């Protein structure tokens, strides 16, 4: 919690004959983060991949081609495949599969191509139904040119000015006029010019076929349906192959990926003609696993050392270490940047503040329930990965939104309890007055208590920014020293606290028009503290840092979005409800006063309005809550730039030893 997992640097050295065993053991343990060896010396070179590497990767390539041709998708297997079984038969099976699949697949492609060709022909022929000529009448002349196409006007008057030696056929196709014009080649230039100038002319090419269009069309249609039948047949065969072999393909893919990974591992090691060295990191608590694992597999013939000396902070891989409920929030950390080894990992703080901000913004029982159900569905569909984390984050936020919805007394914008809104009493859904909990009279109607909620958001903002500065103070102290921390972060804390104290006294005085309370100890102390802070800041960071002081104000004011987003969402919900009920369902205060039709319109307005508001209600609070973390909170302390811990190994899904 708060800090990444403690890491230990490990160096493993041994003779080359033990390399394969060592690699296998490490791969199985799946705990060592290997540091790639890059600086070659005279004695030590980057290792060469094992001979089997090229064989495995070739098979892997063919297998993946097969997999995409068959459309194999990841799924649960009935049982895991044994590794030994796969190792003995994968080459044979892949070769057979290739024979079975690739010829069929090629045929499928060629049939698809043919179908496409014929269908193109069909659509090219159809317009010529409008003309009384067989298709072979359109070509094969030595002295005559044929022009065919759609045209919008009668061109004969203009044509007859060029020559009277022509023949024209016209007809209709789908309400457009089609024509075929036969003119001696001698008039080619003039006729072409005429057609070029005629804007409504669209040229149509006549397919090089013989016979009457309807007859040809019939033939082509028959051919296409025959081809489609054949296509379906082959597709079925491929589907059957897919059904039979998909488990093998998935398992073999995993097996070959693992073997390729192992065979290529030496590319990351330092090797001499007879020895190898592996340099890497392991979570300190797992060091013993490597120690005992290697002792067992190599009989203690491999040298293993734990280096306690300080390494460069950037070189240490980072494994975030948080309690289970806060785990999904690591996604939000990684999206921004992986922390450095000595930095504070803020996941646990986001775990508290992100859902809180979200809930204060959304704060509606109805929306909360809908979002929670959606998140639950996503969570059960995606058992792992980013979407699963996102769903868990959303679920937590939605549940908290329901709580805040209760506090605000809102259910899809309708009041839950009896309230007085803008001076008029309104009946709530439950029909009772709000309860009093811990001395607070519920509900707190958002639109009626803007002033106090605004104050609350500013208090949240000040505390959140201050928390960021405290963490920043700690980070700078660890990375540099206390003096730097006071200059860089302490100064900001003083400005923030001092500024808040001074403004808290100044604002009421200005609002009521009384003179500035210069002698008030809190005001004077605040101003004094802020000035000391500014002096420290200038001393530490230079004169130019004065320009940054206003950002503190905008950072704190930025938290007013917690109120603003919530108000706009509540406002939209209220407006939708008002329009739907007052205008359509209860016109003039009479139930169904405008008839069923009007009431239905009201229901539609209600549905669409809330749907849009709900979508905005997921996006808006989510993004803005995240933005407050990233822009206002993280900038106070977070640098990031660590490498993620990626252990050498494989998370097996389809195979077992």
């Amino acid at each position, binding site marked *: 919690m708060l800090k990444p997992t403690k890491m230990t640097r490990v160096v493993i050295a041994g003779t080359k004959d033990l390399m394969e065993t060592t690699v296998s053991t490490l791969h199985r343990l799946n705990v060592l983060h290997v540091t790639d060896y890059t600086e070659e010396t005279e004695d030590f070179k980057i290792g060469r991949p094992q001979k089997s590497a090229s064989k495995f990767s070739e098979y892997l390539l063919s297998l993946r081609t097969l997999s995409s041709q068959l459309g194999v998708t990841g799924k649960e297997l009935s049982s895991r495949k044994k590794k030994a079984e796969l190792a003995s038969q994968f080459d044979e099976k892949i070769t057979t599969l290739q024979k079975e699949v690739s010829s069929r697949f090629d045929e499928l492609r060629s049939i698809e191509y043919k179908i496409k060709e014929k269908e193109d022909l069909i659509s090219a022929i159809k317009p010529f139904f409008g003309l009384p000529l067989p298709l072979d009448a359109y070509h094969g002349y030595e002295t005559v040119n044929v022009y065919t196409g759609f045209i919008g006007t009668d061109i004969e008057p203009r044509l007859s000015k060029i020559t009277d030696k022509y023949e024209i056929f016209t007809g209709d196709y789908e309400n457009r006029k089609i024509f075929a014009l036969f003119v001696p080649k001698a008039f080619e230039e003039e006729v072409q010019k005429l057609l070029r100038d005629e804007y409504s002319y669209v040229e149509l090419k006549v397919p090089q076929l013989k016979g009457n269009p309807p007859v040809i069309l019939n033939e082509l249609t028959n051919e296409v349906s025959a081809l489609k039948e054949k296509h379906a047949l082959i597709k079925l065969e491929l589907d059957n192959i897919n059904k039979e072999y998909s488990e093998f393909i998935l398992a073999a893919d995993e097996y070959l990926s693992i073997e390729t990974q192992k065979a290529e591992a030496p590319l990351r090691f330092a090797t001499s003609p007879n020895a190898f060295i592996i340099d890497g990191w392991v979570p300190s608590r797992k060091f013993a696993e490597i120690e005992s694992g290697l002792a067992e597999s190599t009989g203690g013939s491999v040298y293993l050392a734990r280096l306690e000396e300080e390494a460069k902070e950037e070189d240490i891989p980072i494994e975030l270490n948080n309690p289970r409920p806060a785990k999904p929030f690591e996604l939000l950390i990684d999206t921004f940047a992986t922390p450095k080894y000595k930095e504070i990992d803020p996941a646990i703080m986001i775990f508290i503040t992100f859902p809180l901000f979200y809930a204060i913004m959304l704060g509606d029982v109805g929306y909360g329930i809908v979002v929670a159900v959606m998140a639950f569905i996503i969570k059960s569909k995606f058992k792992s990965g980013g979407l699963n984390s996102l769903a868990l984050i959303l679920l937590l936020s939605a549940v908290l939104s329901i709580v805040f919805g209760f506090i605000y007394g809102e259910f899809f914008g309708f009041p839950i309890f009896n309230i007085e809104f803008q001076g008029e009493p309104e009946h709530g859904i439950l029909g009772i007055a709000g309860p009093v909990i811990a001395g607070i009279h519920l509900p707190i109607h958002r639109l009626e208590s*803007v002033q106090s909620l605004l104050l609350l958001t500013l208090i949240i903002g000040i505390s959140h920014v201050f928390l960021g500065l405290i963490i920043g103070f700690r980070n700078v102290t660890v990375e540099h020293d206390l003096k730097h921390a006071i200059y860089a972060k302490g100064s900001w804390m003083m400005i923030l606290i001092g500024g808040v104290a001074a403004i808290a006294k100044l604002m009421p005085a200005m609002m009521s028009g009384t003179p500035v309370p210069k002698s008030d100890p809190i005001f004077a102390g605040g101003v004094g503290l802020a000035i000391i802070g500014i002096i420290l800041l200038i001393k530490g960071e230079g004169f130019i840092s004065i320009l940054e002081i206003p950002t503190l104000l905008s950072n704190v004011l930025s938290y007013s*979005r917690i*109120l*603003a987003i919530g108000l706009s969402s509540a406002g939209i919900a209220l407006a939708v409800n008002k329009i739907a009920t007052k205008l359509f369902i209860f016109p003039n205060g009479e139930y169904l006063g405008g008839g069923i039709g009007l009431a239905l319109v009201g229901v539609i307005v209600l549905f669409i309005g809330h749907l849009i508001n709900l979508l905005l209600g997921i996006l808006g609070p989510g993004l*803005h809550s995240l*933005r407050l973390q*990233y822009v206002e909170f993280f900038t106070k302390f977070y640098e990031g730039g660590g490498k993620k811990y990626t252990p050498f190994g494989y998370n097996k899904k389809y195979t077992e030893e």
Partner: protein
Amino acid sequence: MVVDPSQAGMIAVGAGIAVGLAGIGAGMGEQAIGAAAVGAMAEDEKFFGKGLLMTVIPESIAIFGLVVALILLFVF
């Protein structure tokens, strides 16, 4: 602060201007970022999250406008 009824309309107009102009400003800021974010996403879909986040950063301005409007309407 007690407001003369004849000035109440001016407050509403002021609130409207605050939200409207702030919205236009935020929009102008977002258009450039949004275009760049879509460009980045065309290269690599993983930029979706970051792009979306970058795009909402100028939205602060709109929210400041909204807050000013709220203060005008509810506090005065």
